[in-house]
């Protein structure tokens, strides 16, 4: 089934007079792992936040499964932002229960298993965990959902190589069958083997969209190399 999971039509987003996303058009099919690639400030996080519904477009539209972001799309989308969004006083088990409470597609046992592999005691308060552990816990919760679209904002940025490995393995092992995973990152080399497709973003516009295989064949280089070419200053 190749329905369109995420679509943008004439999407624009400005903060005041400053445009961040400019007349963006794209369509992402189901069942693909897609990289949202670009340097910092190119609009990756803004695009993901628009898809998640916590930003409102200035004009144009963004559609998840054909709907504008609302409570129904929130049930279809599993979003991992760059920040920790649980209160520090919460216990780890409470965070798991919170997800179980609100999300019908949440696999509690899987999350608890992954949590114990991380060495997180269920009764530990989140503020006692290191930043890296908190990020991994959030990833575990997000990936334990059987969502239609996973939005992962810089999941491997700013973590050590061992953590990066864990994160990539967790993503690959857990995403639901035939769902789409949109990963934004500026670390191309690590993410390239995982991707089916990619989008290059620059200054709020899409400058290239292709499958990784086609691009490698067409340009005769890795996506990492292609990225350096395209973004050469």
């Amino acid at each position, binding site marked *: 089934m190749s329905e369109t999971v995420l679509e943008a039509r004439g999407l624009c987003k400005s903060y*005041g007079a400053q445009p961040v996303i400019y007349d963006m058009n794209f369509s992402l099919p189901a069942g693909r792992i897609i990289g949202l690639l670009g340097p910092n400030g190119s609009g990756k996080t803004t695009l993901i*936040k628009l898809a*998640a*519904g*916590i*930003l*409102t477009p200035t004009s144009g539209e963004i559609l998840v499964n054909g709907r504008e972001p609302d*409570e*129904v799309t*929130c*049930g279809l*989308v599993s*979003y991992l*932002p760059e*920040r*920790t*969004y*649980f*209160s520090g*006083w919460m216990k780890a088990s409470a965070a798991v229960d*919170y997800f179980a*409470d*609100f*999300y019908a597609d949440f696999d509690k046992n899987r999350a608890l298993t992954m949590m114990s592999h991380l060495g997180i005691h269920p009764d530990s308060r989140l503020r006692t965990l290191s930043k890296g552990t908190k990020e991994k816990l959030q990833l575990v919760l997000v990936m334990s959902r059987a969502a239609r679209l996973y939005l992962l904002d810089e999941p491997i940025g700013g973590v050590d190589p061992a953590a990066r490995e864990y994160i990539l393995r967790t993503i690959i092992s857990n995403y639901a069958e035939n769902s789409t995973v949109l990963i934004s990152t500026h670390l191309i080399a690590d993410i390239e083997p995982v991707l089916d497709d990619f989008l290059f973003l620059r200054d709020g516009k899409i400058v290239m969209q292709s499958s990784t295989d086609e691009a490698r064949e067409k340009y005769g280089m890795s996506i990492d190399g292609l990225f350096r070419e395209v973004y050469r200053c």
Partner: protein
Amino acid sequence: MLGKLIKHDMRSLLRLILPLTLAIIASALLCTLALRLVVSTASTGDGSGYEIMIISSLGAYIFLNAAAVLIYPTVVTILIMYNFYKNLYTDEGYLTFTLPVKRSSILLSKFLTAEFWTFISFVVTSGCVAFAIFFGTATDTLYNTDIMPFIEFILQFVDVTFTAPLIFYIISMVAGSLFQTVIIFLAITIGSIVAKKLKLLAAIGIYYAMDLVTSIVISVIGFIMMIPSFMSDSSALLSSITLQPLVNGIIYVGFAVASYILTNSLMKNKLNLP
């Protein structure tokens, strides 16, 4: 889903407000004891320096406690609003606003839990004051035996003409509380979502603006209601005075509803989390 939101909101607020409430109640109990000591020392004592010391130190404690009990409802409101802001417009908002629930349910849950705890704080405050008066002003009996006869004496005069104004007064109190909760919600929402700079200032400004506008409307309408009584006799004056609280209550509710709708609309259509 609304039930789940309420459950989690209640849990967050409980964590913030319950310790404070228990402390206030405990302090009020101690205060009542102190009051009894002061009353008995003052009435039976001989004015020695030792007694003056006891009375003044206990008196200071009683005064502080009274101040605390009076400030307590305001502190509860601050805690409620802090929780509202933190859960919606800080990093936690990334979690709250991506839940598969209607935005209107999120607001409704916040509103209901806020009103619940506001009511609790009112009950606790009244209860502490009543308790202190009832048990604290007695000397050789457990409770002040003058109070019940006094209340019965007052109740003699209560008849139909008193119940209507009393009910109207209660209505205007409740409406005022709803109004205050909602305009603070609106102020925080406008400050966080709409204002680009100086968000806190914008929030405070909105709050006072709403308060001022409502007060002006209440005064104007109150004055209009008084006009007939200038023309005719005192019975018109009495009925307009009686009706005043009800009219105020309706005005409060009207503004509260408008603010609630506006807040709901902003949350639903204009959300932009930084």
